[in-house]
């Protein structure tokens, strides 16, 4: 049964799930949701498998026509969701929609990527164990491509019970400038002492060349000792390459799996979701952490995520949630009836 029709896809929208693993040895990037925190929380909130397929949109969300009664939620970058032109909803808030409803997702005002999650999860064909679109491989999602408009998408019927909205004070933040923890290596020794200092002290900016493959940064030049190439090796998620142009490139989910540029450092695993919300023009700098520090911070991150995950999976306690604007500031208000 088709559940939603994409009337307008927005600037760049693809189907993504948790990713396609086990094929990097054959040159195939894992793809998958760039902001896994927002993506997973949305699925958990609707009672979906945490890895269910969603629409990942960039800058602005799609305009949808609802084909069957269902529940959806938008998570990730801040935006307003408009239903039938007269009802406004926020992100991280389950929205009950009926057949023939029109849903318009506005421009993102903080962050850059959002997720439209429908109860059950999108039922596009599973290709090599995943529904994620991988554009370079022309597989997954809808015919391996970005949405063009006109697609009718089905959902899986099975799902768990509905959870509850996440209050605004608990939404993940994506405010630039970003300070990103990095673990030095694997090829830090390809850079001069001065080059490493420039990398760690410099203020960088995300350039227009930023997509699901990677982000090219602009900023001070990072000097190599000698050559700017290595015998090609594997590129881990979050690797920061510095080619001969001396500007860093952060490698993201659709990255090439191998490459010949030296990698000065690698972003810590718990930074990837925030990087997924960084956009061209945002300021960015790097902070060196040891593996021990990274472990400690990863534990803190896991705890934070677990608490959010537990919160959104709880059934609603009868409270009603409102977005209230007072003096141009937006508030998320929960009200419970006490007879």
């Amino acid at each position, binding site marked *: 049964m088709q559940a939603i029709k994409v009337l307008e896809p927005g600037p760049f929208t693809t189907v993504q799930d948790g990713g396609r693993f086990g094929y990097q040895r054959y040159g195939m990037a894992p793809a998958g949701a760039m902001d896994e925190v927002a993506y997973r929380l949305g699925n958990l909130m609707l009672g979906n498998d945490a890895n269910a397929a969603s629409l990942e949109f960039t800058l602005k969300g799609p305009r949808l026509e609802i084909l069957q009664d269902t529940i959806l939620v938008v998570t990730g970058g801040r935006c307003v969701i408009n239903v039938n032109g007269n009802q406004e909803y926020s992100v991280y808030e389950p929205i009950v929609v009926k057949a023939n409803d029109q849903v318009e997702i506005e421009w993102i005002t903080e962050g850059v990527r959002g997720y439209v999650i429908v109860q059950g999860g999108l039922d596009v064909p599973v*290709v090599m164990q995943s529904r994620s679109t991988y554009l370079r*491989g022309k597989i997954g999602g809808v015919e391996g491509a970005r949405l063009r408009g006109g697609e009718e998408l089905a959902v899986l019927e099975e799902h768990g019970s509905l959870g509850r909205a996440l209050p605004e004070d608990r939404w993940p933040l994506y405010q630039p400038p970003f300070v990103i923890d990095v673990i030095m290596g694997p090829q830090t020794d390809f850079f001069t002492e001065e080059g490493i200092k420039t990398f760690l002290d410099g203020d960088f900016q995300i350039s227009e060349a930023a997509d699901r493959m990677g982000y090219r940064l602009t900023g001070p030049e990072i000097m190599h000792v000698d050559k700017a190439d290595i*015998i090609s090796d594997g590129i881990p*998620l979050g690797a920061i390459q510095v080619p001969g142009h001396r500007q860093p490139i952060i490698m993201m989910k659709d990255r090439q*799996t191998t490459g010949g540029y030296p990698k000065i450092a*690698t972003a810590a*695993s718990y930074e990837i979701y925030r990087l997924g919300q960084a956009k061209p023009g945002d300021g960015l700098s790097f902070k060196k952490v040891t593996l021990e520090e990274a472990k400690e911070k990863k534990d803190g991150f896991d705890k934070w995520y677990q608490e959010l995950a537990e919160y959104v999976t709880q059934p609603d306690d009868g409270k009603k949630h409102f977005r209230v604007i007072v003096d141009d500031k937006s508030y998320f208000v929960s009200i419970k009836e006490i007879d």
Partner: protein
Amino acid sequence: MSDINVLPAGDQAAVLEFENRIDPDINSKVRAADYYLWHGSELEGLLETVPTYRSLLVYYDPVVWDFESLKSVLLNIEEHLQEVAIPNPETLEIPVVYGGEYGPDIDYVAEHNNLSVEEVIEIHHSAAYLIYMLGFVPGFPYLGGMSQQIATPRLENPRTQIPAGSVGIAGSQTGIYPLESPGGWRLIGRTPLKLFDPTKDDPFLPKPGHYLKFYPISEQEFKSYG
């Protein structure tokens, strides 16, 4: 003990490096280490490995491993390679229709090297090429072992659209385009085989560490494939 090194690649991956050269013997160590990890070691918490020319990227589960403990295992890996029988590399046979509309640059390659087209084909298909690694796009094999006799520089202006299966030469390398894509290789032929077919249980024909050989077929044979 040979030159071996383990480096951190973030907090969930490590790189095992062998000697810093492109060499079939070193690549076979990469293949052996990779094979041992998956088929001999019984280690838990390894998520994915990426074998390349002279190194192996190992993604690990940080709940099971920390870098230092994985490093000590990987540093001693050569002592354990005897514990598992590593199968001999296989040779993948790739049919190619050479020249004509399938290989529009074959005349240039012949002229450039003062050879006849027949000699180019003979030299190209008589060698067995080591698949050092896969990368660039899904299923793209980095092949070693092409004769310098047919080495030819890339096109100055890359083509915007090259059909999937195209076989080309770039400098002293030969390769196959698994997907339709832009590129600057000199095209000498095309294979009807799909190097990458996501609908198959085993979607990739070339495997890292194995060998690949071309054999010539006619245009008619090309057209009779699937």
